[in-house]
């Protein structure tokens, strides 16, 4: 059996790690916004489209990071000490379902906003180019976005969903063992 001091030490480091993971997400969020807004101030774009483009990109990032924050906080709220096994299983299932929805919806909205943002941002700089170059720049950018949208995004979603669905199946199987009269 492990030593009692070892347990207390581990518990403390768990608490610290949990706090740090929330803090880190928020720091990443703040730095990202600061950098993007810094670009806006430093390069002083003239077109409204550029500003809207930057704004859309920031909204996309803020959305993902706040969403992740919310999911982590929900996980911390779980209290294994105050819930019966049945309630606990139900909460785990609820959490996994929410996580699956979050991953599916947020990632799609994120990609859409970011692509639109980049497209708008580029207008100001491409109008100064010759039309052939502009066309080339847009083609390459949107080809890259298309690869992400049609190849990487579905693959990522599928991988995440398979994992989550497997967990939900297991949790529901065990939860059904507790149905009265079963």
């Amino acid at each position, binding site marked *: 059996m*492990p030593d009692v001091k070892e347990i207390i030490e581990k518990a403390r480091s768990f608490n610290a790690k949990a706090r740090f993971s929330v803090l880190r997400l928020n720091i990443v969020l703040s730095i990202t916004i600061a950098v993007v807004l810094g670009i806006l101030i430093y390069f002083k774009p003239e077109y409204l489209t550029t500003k809207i483009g930057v704004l859309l990109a920031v909204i996309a990032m803020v959305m993902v990071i706040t969403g992740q924050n919310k999911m982590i906080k929900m996980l911390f709220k779980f209290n294994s000490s105050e819930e019966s096994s049945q309630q606990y299983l139900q909460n785990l299932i609820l959490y996994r379902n929410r996580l699956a929805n979050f991953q599916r919806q947020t990632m799609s909205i994120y990609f859409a906003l970011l692509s639109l943002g980049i497209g708008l941002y580029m207008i100001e700089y491409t109008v100064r180019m010759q039309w052939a170059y502009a066309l080339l720049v847009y083609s390459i950018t949107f080809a890259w976005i298309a690869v992400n949208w049609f190849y990487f995004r579905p693959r990522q979603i599928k991988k995440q969903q398979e994992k989550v669905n497997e967990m939900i199946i297991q949790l529901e199987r065990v939860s059904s063992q507790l149905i009265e009269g079963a």
Partner: protein
Amino acid sequence: MTFEEIYQAYSPKVYRLCMGYVNDSDLAKDLTQESFISVWQNLSKFRNDSAIGTWIFRIAANNCLRQLEKEKWVMKAELPTELEDVIQEGSNVQEKLLFKFIAELEETDRLIISLELEELPQAQIAEIIGISEGNIRVKIHRIKEKILKKFQQHEQLQRYKTTLA
């Protein structure tokens, strides 16, 4: 009760519960440790409206169920070799078999019978698991029947083997 006292009093019981659930001594040790980490973290929130034993077993039972979310978790029911560790002292064949047979049950049945073996009142088991006391009574009855049947089958098999030898 201080955390140290709680740990001294309950860690062997929690370990046996975890062992009944996973049938793997290393994993049971890890689960016991994780459970007491939760106990330590939540101790300030513990209200005396339930017995401390119920509260600790609830944390441990939920912690065992959390195993369902871990990847590549495999059922250990087929590996009775792992049993040596938990029942080294004063262990006999009957005890070893009991642990093996518990490991072959459904997840929640494993928790229920392990709590019963720790001599917890059925009302407390009902509170921990979250189903009615009547249902717990029925389940325990059925589980005991199942285990008894396994013992009988085992004896028959042994007798058959001796006749053959």
